[in-house]
């Protein structure tokens, strides 16, 4: 370990902040001065000396004060470029324990980096939030939110491996040096699909050094660019009035570009809620898809076809619009009419519409979509679709690498992709065999997965929060990746560091702290790249670090040419010849997140399955295959009557799915709204099992996964070939007689006639009137109009009308707009990371003991009269957390006063006072309270049966996860009730900051203390200046939060003044502070299914 150098931050120019030790000092009263003279004659001299600022104690205090201000107020504060994280044995004085520091960074990923602001406490990154300054920084998805947990994951790889066995660092260094010294080495570099300018620059240098080197790009699920090498198409939803998704789940798992503008245009009042509801402000989304996706849920019109048939729909659409294709691709009359009407709508909005092809759909769909967009004039500057030249041109594919390995063109492999090719490459590539032929293979990864074991060498990778790098966002904005912490384990190496080691003459690996007090070599490399893009000025670099991106940087436009698409009809699947779809999983993605407990525990947004994958199958197909009765029987066995099963009792039958000559056994789950004769298999699971496995599967791969991922789900990659990377036809399914238990987060999918997640349509309804009438009727749905007024016994004011116990400054409230909420789970995980919410494991979740403070309810609504497609129900998500009732049922029943109302309108929990009678939770109509049945934080819930072993159980939950904890939120012990409190730690922080700012301003103005005037105006925090975690993470802007007393200056107040606003379970009279805004669907009246859209609740009596 080299010696760490302690450096103080510079004093910002024009700094006027002062710190003080006591109130007397702050106010600088004569009495204080007198006291000072008496007590510390020397100190007093120092204090009075204004001149000698350089050496005095005062200047030291000033430094402290300046940093305090930065720490508290800065959004994206400057990170010192020295890149040292100080040990707290000798704390840097500008760090205040419990005060967060915020830095801009980003998460590199396929399709474009996610710009982030990272919260750190005492040098520990704990939480990520979107960087709203960034042009593409409109939100974070569940993966980005959960990524911070991976840093502290107990199953993280932390040492070098040789052929799967631990080995000393020096051995690897020797091997690496040997490669670096051999300029004739035939190295194949496999990068991920993210676009890093520094990596691209280094790749060029590497190509210069190693003449025989080749570069490849591989991620299991990233679609190859089929419209041109390195060309990407990025929609600008703000300009798109009509959107067609051809199996493109752009608000869900296929999220690669900013979607905030899309969600904003789902609000008929406009995103600022200033206007009247106006259907013409809304966009209209048509979705064509096989399995229900979140995009399908948001769609105004959804066409249910097997993924193989999407090409036919695209061809029909293209044919109708005169963009090639074929007008006879679709034979079904209803579907044809649907497509023709959609085409007419698109034509009307030519130049203001966009057709998006699913990234995993075959090339023909992309070509057709491109042709349609070109015919409609949707592409170009100022148009809704941009074509860019990315930096990822000229890279080979994994198939190419396999060929090169076999032919001997490549004999050294550097596996730098975040994917796990040995596990997730198409089965027919036989990549593992090819890799075994390599002379030297080096795998860089955060987990010791299948590739780590198969490769000759495994290098533990640094997390993106531990490394210097850079990336391009979706629109090509140059974005920095800066470290928040030195690698947690000293051997962790970043991708750039590894490449730089190869570039250096002696091949010396410098990682993390670098050497002899120098920063990581990656720092210099990134800085050099930046200098090439902008300038060498320190100021520009500092601005980059502060803002996180280089303003004005963008991809160069491309002009892709649509090749004449060759459409060949694929037969629609039948019960005898099923279509098998390899779906992206919303929890593990391609399998890389399998060891992330937060992602595993959060139920899938559509199927609500957690901790496993399952074959999803439409009810009709299940019936045809003869497995429906078995599912029904099993699910209703214990539950006695209900066909949809009950928590903890779900035992799914295992079916054997055969396709491409191989078969796997997978448990089956009925999925509503899925195309018939299609079996959807989410990928990425089944990476390893140990002896605790329910099915006693082979334990050979137990070392490939950690405690979270072990025994989880079923590996379906063996079925997948290069030609059938997304879907395969001709599959069969048969019963096996075996069973497997599944943990399903929500058992009941219907609203049972209760208008919970309300919905209206812009189209006139015969009974409920036009759009305006429907909007006006939102708060009256489901009998709320004739429920008698609920008058509370406890009055909020006294006899004289004076308000009791209420804060005149702040009254918090929240509104959730179901119209823009897609149900993506980002808020759930954001809340989990902000509020130290533990995971409980599969068994506990199956019992219904989840701890998520905000849960994503998902309802299906079937219109019985729907004669267009009766098996395609509407999907409405509804996030439910504690709604902070003003008249809270939980508060009156707690015998020990552990849950009480605060003066600013929160329903607070005093954990220390709670004895755990659970009465509050029973009386909560929203079931928003969560009970710590076990010591989840102390006793590892992932070790089998551990929770039930009590004092004999294993106590540690890994060695690092506690580092992720937010120090401002209590970690709850067992036996305590917990729930959402609107991130009270953030609210209190904001209020305190506001108060402190007052003092500072007064002081800066040089006024004596008696002149300090505080008023409601000065003490109240600025309008909309505090954000809660769920709101901050939400890419859809569905959650608004603010101070009720700001009136309609506050966004949340305006949202609540909208007629779409309604209280959940209004009739109980709880007066919730969180209300919902009804979802609006904007159907095209000419469409054959228009009558059945937007009516999930409208007719509920």
């Amino acid at each position, binding site marked *: 370990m080299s010696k760490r150098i302690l450096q103080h931050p510079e004093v910002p120019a024009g700094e006027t902040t002062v710190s003080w030790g006591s109130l007397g000092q702050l106010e600088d009263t004569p009495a204080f001065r007198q006291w000072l003279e008496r007590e510390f004659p020397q100190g007093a001299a120092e204090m009075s000396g204004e001149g000698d600022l350089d050496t005095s104690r005062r200047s030291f205090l000033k430094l402290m004060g300046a940093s305090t201000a930065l720490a508290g107020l800065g959004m994206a504060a400057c990170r010192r470029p020295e890149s040292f994280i100080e040990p707290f044995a000798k704390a840097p004085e500008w760090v205040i324990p419990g005060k967060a520091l915020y830095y801009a960074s980003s998460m590199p990923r396929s399709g474009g980096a996610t710009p982030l602001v990272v919260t750190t406490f005492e040098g520990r990154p704990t939480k990520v939030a979107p960087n709203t300054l960034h042009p593409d920084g409109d939100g974070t998805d569940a993966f980005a939110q959960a990524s911070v947990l991976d840093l502290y994951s107990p199953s993280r790889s932390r040492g070098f491996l040789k052929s799967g066995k631990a080995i000393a660092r020096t051995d690897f260094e020797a091997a690496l040096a040997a490669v670096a010294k051999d300029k004739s080495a035939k190295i194949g570099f496999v990068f991920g699909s993210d676009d890093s300018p520094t990596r691209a620059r280094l790749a060029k240098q590497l190509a210069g050094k190693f003449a025989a080197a080749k570069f490849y790009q591989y991620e299991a699920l990233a679609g190859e660019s089929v419209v041109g090498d390195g060309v990407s198409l990025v929609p600008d939803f703000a300009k798109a009035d009509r959107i067609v998704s051809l199996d493109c789940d752009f608000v869900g798992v296929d999220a690669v570009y900013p979607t905030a503008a899309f969600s904003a245009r789902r609000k008929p009042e406009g995103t600022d809620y200033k206007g009247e509801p106006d259907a013409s402000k809304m966009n209209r989304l048509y979705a064509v898809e096989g399995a229900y996706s979140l995009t399908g849920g948001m769609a105004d019109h959804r066409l249910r076809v097997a993924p193989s048939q999407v090409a036919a729909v695209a061809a029909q659409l293209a044919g109708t619009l005169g963009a090639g294709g074929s007008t006879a691709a679709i034979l079904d009359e209803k579907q044809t009419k649907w497509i023709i009407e959609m085409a007419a709508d698109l034509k009307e909005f030519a130049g203001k519409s966009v057709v998006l092809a699913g990234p995993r759909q075959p090339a023909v769909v992309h070509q057709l979509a491109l042709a349609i967009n070109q015919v409609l004039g949707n592409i170009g500057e100022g148009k809704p679709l941009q074509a860019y030249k990315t930096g990822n041109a000229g890279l080979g594919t994994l198939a190419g690498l396999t060929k090169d390995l076999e032919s001997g063109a490549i004999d050294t492999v550097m596996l730098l992709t975040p994917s796990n090719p040995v596990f997730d490459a198409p089965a027919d590539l036989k990549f593992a065999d090819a890799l075994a032929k390599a002379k030297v293979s080096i795998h860089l990864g955060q987990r010791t997965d299948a590739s780590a074991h198969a490769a000759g060498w495994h290098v533990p990778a640094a997390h993106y929060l531990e490394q210097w790098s850079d990336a391009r966002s979706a629109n090509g904005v140059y974005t920095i990746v800066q470290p928040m912490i030195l690698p947690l384990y000293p051997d962790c190496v970043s991708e750039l560091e590894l490449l730089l080691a190869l570039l250096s003459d002696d091949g010396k690996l410098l990682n993390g702290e670098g050497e002899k007090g120098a920063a990581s070599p990656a720092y210099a490399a990134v800085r050099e790249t930046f200098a090439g893009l902008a300038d060498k000025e320190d100021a520009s670099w500092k601005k980059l670090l502060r803002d996180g991106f280089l303003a004005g940087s963008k991809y160069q436009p491309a002009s892709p040419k649509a090749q004449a698409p060759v459409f060949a009809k694929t037969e629609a699947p039948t019960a005898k010849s099923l279509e098998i779809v390899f779906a992206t999983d919303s929890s593990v993605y391609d399998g890389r997140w399998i060891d992330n407990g937060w992602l595993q525990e959060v139920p899938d947004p559509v199927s609500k399955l957690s901790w496993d994958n399952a074959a999803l199958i439409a009810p009709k197909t299940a019936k045809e295959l003869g497995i429906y009765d078995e599912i029904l029987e099993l699910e209703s066995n214990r539950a*006695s009557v209900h066909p949809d099963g*009950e*928590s903890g009792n779900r035992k799914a039958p295992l079916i054997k799915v055969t396709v491409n000559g191989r078969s796997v056994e997978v448990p089956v789950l009925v999925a509503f709204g899925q195309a018939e004769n299609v079996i959807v298999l989410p990928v990425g699971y089944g990476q390893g099992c140990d002896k605790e496995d329910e099915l006693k599967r082979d334990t050979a791969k137990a070392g490939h996964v950690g405690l979270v991922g072990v025994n989880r789900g079923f590996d379906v990659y063996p079925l997948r070939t290069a030609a059938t990377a997304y879907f395969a036809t001709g599959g069969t399914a048969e019963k096996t007689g075996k069973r497997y238990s599944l943990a399903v987060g929500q058992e009941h999918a219907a609203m049972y006639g209760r208008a*919970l997640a309300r919905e209206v349509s812009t189209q006139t309804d015969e009974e409920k009137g036009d759009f305006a009438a429907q909007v006006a009727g939102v708060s009256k749905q489901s009998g709320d109009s004739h429920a008698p007024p609920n008058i509370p016994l406890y009055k909020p004011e006294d006899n004289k009308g004076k308000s009791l116990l209420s804060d005149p400054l702040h009254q918090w409230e929240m509104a959730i707009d179901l119209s823009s909420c897609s149900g993506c789970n980002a808020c759930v995980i954001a809340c989990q990371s902000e509020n130290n919410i533990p995971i409980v494991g599969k068994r506990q979740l199956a019992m219904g003991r989840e701890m998520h403070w905000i849960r994503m309810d998902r309802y299906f609504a079937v219109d019985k009269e729907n004669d267009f497609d009766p098996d395609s129900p509407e999907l409405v998500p509804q996030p439910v957390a504690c709604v902070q009732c003003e008249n809270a049922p939980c508060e009156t029943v707690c*015998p020990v006063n552990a849950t009480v109302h605060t003066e600013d309108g929160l329903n607070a929990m005093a954990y220390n006072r709670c004895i*755990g009678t659970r009465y509050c*939770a029973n009386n909560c109509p929203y079931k928003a*309270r969560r*009970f710590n049945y076990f010591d989840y934080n102390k006793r590892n819930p992932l070790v089998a049966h551990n929770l039930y072993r009590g004092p004999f159980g294993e106590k540690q939950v890994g060695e690092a996860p506690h580092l992720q904890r937010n120090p401002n939120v209590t970690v709850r012990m*067992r036996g305590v009730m917990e729930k959402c409190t609107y991130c009270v730690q953030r609210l209190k922080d904001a209020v305190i900051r506001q108060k402190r700012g007052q003092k500072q301003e007064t002081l800066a103005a040089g006024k004596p203390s008696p002149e300090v005037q505080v008023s409601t105006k000065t003490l109240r925090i600025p309008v909309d200046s505090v954000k809660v975690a769920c709101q901050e993470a939400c890419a859809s802007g569905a959650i608004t939060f603010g101070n009720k007393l700001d009136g309609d200056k506050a966004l949340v107040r305006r949202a609540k003044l909208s007629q779409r606003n309604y209280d959940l379970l209004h009739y109980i009279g709880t007066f919730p502070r969180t209300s919902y805004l009804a979802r609006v669907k904007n159907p095209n009246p000419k469409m054959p299914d228009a009558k059945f859209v937007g009516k999930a609740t409208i007719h509920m009596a």
Partner: protein
Amino acid sequence: MAHATHTADETRQGPKLPVLEREKLILNNRSYHWITERICGVLENKQPAIWWMLFIPSAIIALIGVLGGLSILVSTGVGVWGMTNTVFWGWDITNFVFWIGIGHAGTLISAILFLTRQNWRTSINRAAEAMTIFAVCCAGIFPAFHVGRVWFAWFLAPIPNANAIWQNFKSPLLWDVFAVSTYFTISLIFWYLGMVPDLATIRDRAKPGLRKLLYGIFAMGWRGGNRQWSHYEMAYLLLAALSTPLVLSVHSVVSFDFATSVVPGWHTTIFPPYFVAGAIFGGFAMVLTIMIPARFIYGLQDMITMKHIDNMAKIILLTGTIVGYAYLMELFVAFYSGAQYEAAAFKYRLVGPYWWAYVAMMSCNVLSPQVFWFKWCRENLWVVMAVCMCVNVGMWFERFVIICTTLARMFLPADWGYYRASPVEIMLFVGTIGMFLALFLLFLRFLPCINIAEVKWTLPEADPHHDDHHDHPDHGVAKEAAYQHELQAKA
């Protein structure tokens, strides 16, 4: 049993009319001495083999179930039970309400029947009161230990503390704490006070030694003097008056736990009377369940007569019908109110996942006691025992239905779930049954199970007018002579 009639004397008011003769409370003209011998014999003689056969398993079950069950619970967490984040209460509160309900017959018999001068109570009140005490002991375990952090359960007590937080007096759970603890205290004092003269009797019969010393301490110097009797009777009367409202209050307060909530299926005004009726119903069933075997084992048939059993069966019939009315009224109101969630809550009781619990409750509580309309059924002890067992089961299911069915189906279908008791939960309940039986058997072993003093009052001899010449052909001469003779013999 045909009632004998006799013809009253002709009076100046009218002709002679046949009147029903009051059935004797103590049969076979048993004397004071016989009663003392028989009741004291239960605890002075060697216990029959059956006592040991019952006591040993009960005590083992109690030790394993209660001590073991609670050790697992407290050391590991409430998670060892089956509750979920939807159904937060399960067998714990079900058992609490069940046991509290059992305790109701004791107070009713000892207080209300005392005040209304129902002399038949004297044969059964001691055992019923003992049951109350033991049932409340069993009941208390559940709310005390079901909390997540039992080591902080003292937060429920209004003890001044450093937190400076007072209890929440709006919470029915806190009322529960007060109601149950008051009930327990008063019942205990009442029970003990009534036992003092009997303890003195046992003391007087015992040979000098530890036994005499202990009974002597607990008899508190009772000598049976007039002054003592007069104080005793006043105290007993006052305590009876004090505990009478408790019969109504305890279970009303327990029902407030549910009735004051906003939960559909709990939030009903019918709960207090319905719970009280149910408690008396269940309590009497439990008294019969225990007393019928006990009277056989110890040969107490002359004191606990068929008349007692008949009376209690009639009370079971009455309260069972009240409970049945309440069940139907709940359904009617749910239907008639037009309240969507209320209607759904009751719909799911009937056809939801716990329909079997509802069926069990209805058939055991409403249908089975209806056989008591028939005298033959009230006289056949097998039938009586069968019905009482049904009622015991049914009343447990009633609480289960109210608590679990309701919580499993509240407002938002998305959070609906299913609850299943875990083995640890079942173990604790079985343990409390063992504990209840073991305590009762110990009671039989060490304390007079029938109120010796009070039973004697019901004998004809205890009547001051027993020797009144109007009642006796010889104007009491023979009796008087016999008494004088006795006095002389003693002198």
